């Protein structure tokens, strides 16, 4: 349980910047197409692709030492990367289905 919660806490840091950029993508799509469903679809598709980018920027570039917190708990970098991809995919799919 502690491991799952830790992975979520790791991911939590990525949500706000990624959501902001996704909303921006959705807004720009809406401005160009005037189609709300298309804007919604593009914003969540961009969410999937932007989370790995923000993980790279926030953790690998800006705070690489924070990985040690998770490594000490037995959570490897690979697990964190895969978790990010799976969580983003899951959240995006749910939002696209809704």
């Amino acid at each position, binding site marked *: 349980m502690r491991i799952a919660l830790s992975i979520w806490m790791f991911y939590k840091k990525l949500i706000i910047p990624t959501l902001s950029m996704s909303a921006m993508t959705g807004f720009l799509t809406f401005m160009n197409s005037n189609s709300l469903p298309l804007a919604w679809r593009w914003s969540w598709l961009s969410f999937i692709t932007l989370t790995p980018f923000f993980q790279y920027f926030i953790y690998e570039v800006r705070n690489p*030492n924070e990985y040690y*917190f998770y490594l000490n708990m*037995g959570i490897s970098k690979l697990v964190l990367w895969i978790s990010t991809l799976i969580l983003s995919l899951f959240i995006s799919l749910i939002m696209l289905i809704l």
Partner: protein
Amino acid sequence: MDFNIDPEFIYKPDNVNIMKGLYVDSVTKSFGIRQVLTDIFLSCNVGEIVGLLGRNGAGKSTLLKIIFGSMQADFKFVRIGDKRINGLYDNRNLINYLPQHSFLPNHLKISQIIKLFCDKSNAELIAANELIAPFIHKKAKQLSGGEKRLVEIFLIIYSNATYILIDEPFNGIAPIYKEQIKIMIREQSKNKGFIITDHDYRNILDLSTRIVLIHDGGTKEIKNKDELEFWGYIPSM
């Protein structure tokens, strides 16, 4: 020996658990053409506090990262008891490592961090400590460097791992806290083995049950201060 070593912890079979000892051997590591570690042998048993000394750039932090598994060595042999440790996957609950720079997730509160990192009993113990209690509800990013270090030391010392590697624990810590940290490490070393490195060598000499010096890429067992002078780690008096 002229170090201030607690005789309770020196090589006594009833105190030192050799069967599950940590053995590090044949570590080599190069950065480009510069070979930093060439001939490393290091051991640590439960009940021991091994002080690791060396000049700047000698490879102390590199060695700790290699033992922990977060850095690849050119070659290494690390074993705990009968279990060979090849990387991070093998060392869960066996080796924990406190790096030189803060690893606390800045976006979390200290209370959350403690609950995530430690089991319930240790989390309660840390949260109730008078040094930690004042900033338990603050986020890590609101703490000073010294306060962060204090939290990290508590987390790592009270973690579940059998072997604890600590890189510069006294860096940025007020002298009054240093004594309390040393008391905690001595107390926890009854059930754990510690390998500690710090440039504040007096505290290391005071705390350690054994001293190892990294010199020219190799390790030397140090018996007294004269040997530290001989190997050029401290100036001759």
